[in-house]
């Protein structure tokens, strides 16, 4: 029994390092890219452009990149952008809820496609629920 516990522990530890390296491969380039872009006027320009849309969810223009990266690419990409841009905690929570409800929508819809021919409905429902929840959270958080 002791051997089983230690074997499982070390297997878990090795897998956790593999997972961390996978996460690092996504987070590091995106974060570095955004930190470097933040030194230029481009991020500020995009943020200002998207500020009116983001204000519907009680978010600043800066939250646009983490939100859309999360919805279409994945949670890890979203967190990389948040690390680089440094959002306030309230906005990280709203983005976290919205991305939690609808993340990696393209890849995950393709997974749903394996099991049902109505897979496209999942994408629509998730996006609508995420946006309406974000709108409601603006008044609550």
């Amino acid at each position: 029994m002791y051997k089983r516990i230690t074997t499982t522990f070390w297997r878990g530890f090795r897998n956790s390092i593999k997972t961390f390296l996978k996460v690092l491969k996504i987070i590091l380039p995106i974060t570095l890219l955004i930190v470097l872009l933040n030194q230029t006027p481009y991020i500020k320009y995009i943020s200002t452009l998207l500020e009116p849309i983001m204000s519907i969810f009680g978010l600043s223009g800066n939250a646009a990149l983490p939100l859309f990266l999360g919805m279409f690419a994945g949670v890890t990409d979203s967190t990389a952008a948040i690390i680089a841009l440094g959002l306030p905690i309230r906005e990280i929570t709203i983005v976290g809820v919205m991305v939690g409800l609808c993340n990696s929508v393209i890849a995950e819809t393709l997974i749903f496609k394996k099991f049902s021919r109505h897979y496209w409905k999942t994408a629509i429902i998730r996006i609508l629920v995420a946006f309406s929840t974000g709108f409601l959270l603006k008044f609550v958080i």
Partner: protein
Amino acid sequence: MEWIIFLPIIKTLFNIAITIIPIRILIEFIEEYKLIEKIEKHTHFMTNWFEITTKSLIPMISGWILGMFAGSSVLADYHFDKKITQDETNKVMSIWMFAHGLIDETALYVILGANMFWILGVRIFFAIFAVKALIILSKKGFNITI
């Protein structure tokens, strides 16, 4: 450029590492000791609520804990081997729409300072009540099959 701007990144990556490592070890123990199968015996309230059989619980809970990609391989085993019906597969997918990878995905935002109760609470709320609403509407004749 000041190199100090990279300091928050290094600090956050360290926090991610010390969160991911115990979570992954925990998941390994869950898989090794087949804890999901053991929980199955005590989950009649879930099967009654979602109107599914206990066989659907294993892929469902796998998706909650392991995430969509790992959970879908478990679901594929059950779905394509006809251990569960298409209706049950649809219900599992409906639940996964809102709640999957609950530990990993929540942890990544909580490390950055997000409120865990909002992130988990909203997802679980939709998984439980919105999906139940979809089930009730389907029974009343609305064509909302996922």
